[in-house]
């Protein structure tokens, strides 16, 4: 019997040994094409028949484009599993996969610490307003003339966490070490144990009572542009916004307007609506902190993520099932 095939979409950077060790269980292949059109053709032509599972990376979207309905529909019949290397899997149309009986996994947990670290870094950077000082210093102007505005201490401020999953709960512990008080909104209230003393509030109350709002929820149809003009109006004047989740959760143009009129005092962003494009109103604002989607970009976390994703491929080959499945498919 021929070995099943596993399709690699994207690059393995660290866990080469781990990946290569799969070759005793499956034939490891990559697409020949480097474009979406070419990839769709390869699928349709039957060249990828026999592929049982696909390991895909976030960056592989540059080759195949989004795993939307059009693409999912032409994947080979044999393909039963998509293992996505990332916590956010909005690039994959899960409903389309479910309709074809394809199971999808992501990488939770391994991402929690690194993402929460960058999240806390951005909270500090935005509250303290460090960006103007760093720019002035590198320009040879020390603090600049006039000196930058004073920042704010996190101590005693209310941090509203939107989305109390693994990353949100990880962030809570770090924020509390800085003396912040945490409130949260989640689709479902957490058990007391998981919430660890954080107060569960309504979405409206979170908007109106937070000094800092952190976005830690997935992007999907219901959360796209969850925050726009109306929501900014409900927030405290002088609020600080931090987003390490997905850019499209926030209407970026509305954010820029809220910054410009002073309603939002500052923001810290790792993600953007149309990355790598960043709204010019953000780039031009020296009082905000901007980093280029690098929440999990460390040696340790990238290695752990690859290991987890390879682990899912191995589980599929050895046991016929994934180690974890995306929440939308929990009943599959």
């Amino acid at each position: 019997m021929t070995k099943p095939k596993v399709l690699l979409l994207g690059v393995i950077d660290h866990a080469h040994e781990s990946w290569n060790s799969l070759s005793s269980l499956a034939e490891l292949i990559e697409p020949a094409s480097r474009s979406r059109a070419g990839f769709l053709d390869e699928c349709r032509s039957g060249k990828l028949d026999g592929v049982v599972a696909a390991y895909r990376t976030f960056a592989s979207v540059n080759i195949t484009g989004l795993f939307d309905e059009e693409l999912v529909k032409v994947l080979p019949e044999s393909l039963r599993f998509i293992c996505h290397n990332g916590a956010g899997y909005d690039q994959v149309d899960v409903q389309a996969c479910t309709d074809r009986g394809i199971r999808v996994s992501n990488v939770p947990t391994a991402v929690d610490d690194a993402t929460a670290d960058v999240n806390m870094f951005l909270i500090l950077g935005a509250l303290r307003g460090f960006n103007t000082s760093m720019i002035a210093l590198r320009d040879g102007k020390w603090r600049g003339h006039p000196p930058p505005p004073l920042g704010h201490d996190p101590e005693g401020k209310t941090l509203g966490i939107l989305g109390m999953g693994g990353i949100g709960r990880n962030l809570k512990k770090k924020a509390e070490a800085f003396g912040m008080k945490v409130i949260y909104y989640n689709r479902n209230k957490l058990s007391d144990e998981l919430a660890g003393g954080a107060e569960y509030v309504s979405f409206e109350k979170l908007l109106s009572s937070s000094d800092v709002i952190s976005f830690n929820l997935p992007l999907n149809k219901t959360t796209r542009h969850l925050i726009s003009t109306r929501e900014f109006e409900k927030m405290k004047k002088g609020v600080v916004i931090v987003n390490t989740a997905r850019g499209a959760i926030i209407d970026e143009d509305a954010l820029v307007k809220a910054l410009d009129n002073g309603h939002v005092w500052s923001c810290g962003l790792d993600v953007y609506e149309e990355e790598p494009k960043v709204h010019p109103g953000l780039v031009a604002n020296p009082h905000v902190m901007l980093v280029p989607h690098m929440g999990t970009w460390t040696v340790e976390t990238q290695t752990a993520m690859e290991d987890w994703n390879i682990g899912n491929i191995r589980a599929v080959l050895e046991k016929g099932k994934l180690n974890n499945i995306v929440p939308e498919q929990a009943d599959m």
Partner: protein
Amino acid sequence: MVGKAALLIGEITHARREWQECGAILKLKEYPDGSREEFVSKCRNGDFDDVTVIYRSNDSNKITGNFNKELVDALPDSLKFICHNGAGYDNIDIEACTRRGISVSSTPVAVNDATADIAIFLMLGALRRITSSFQSVRQGNWRGSNFQLGHDPKNKVFGILGMGGIGSAVATRARAFGMKIQYHNRHQLPSNEEGGAEYVSFKELLETSDVLSLNLSLNPSTKHIISKPQFDMMKEGVVVINTARGPLIDEAALVEAMKSGKVWSVGVDVYEEEPKIHLGLLENENVVLLPHIGTATFETQRDMELLVLENLKDAVQYGRLKTQVLEQKYRKNEDDRWLRNH
């Protein structure tokens, strides 16, 4: 209190009302701007002969220069207290003040949280070598050409040199990031004050820390406490954080240690000759640099000003300071341990 005056050198920004209220117990004089020469000549001309307490603002050094022996000796005989706004007071000659019977206070505790916050920001930024990313996004280049993998703080060894109020506040935060905390002080703290941190020798701190944070005060014996021999002892790839005082580190040796790869990244808020910065740091995209803004928040600036005023009021009303500097409150015995003065 007829005839007793307080002299404000520099500015009070967040506690003006509280300063004005001191007018009930003191005559209030101000020297908001000027030069060292002008200040000294005013002292000598008797302009400040009724001044018993000075409020020395954080930015007053650029007006009067250091309160060294020369200046301290020119201060009026009436002066009994200098209430300094700042946790660091290396620009005051404490011994000269003590010899003239002048008591000095600083602003500990009020600075702890803000300084610890900036230390952690610098650590996280240095571990990610974040500066080139900041710059590339602003230039419209997204991640740019120098985009590198960073490191997680989790499970790394965080070494604190100087476990005072700020060092302890830094430790609390670093612990929340999953780091293992060790520290060196001249003497070990009582175990109920260590918060689980391990006490190690200076040598062991240097040899085994993945991240080293300087949180000790600057004085003649700690100048250049980190120099080439110390860098040679450190782990390959160490990250160095300094929010204390620039001259604690031999800046040129730091630049060399970065070139050799011994030091992987650096996060600093202070410099040996600030505002001048060694070019080897200024032009290095792999380090995070801030211009001595450790306590630059509305809340902390106000807290510090209020603490100076509390010292000032205690001085006038009770003849003692609330947060007198350690060197005057205590003296060292033969074992280099502090003993309280009477």
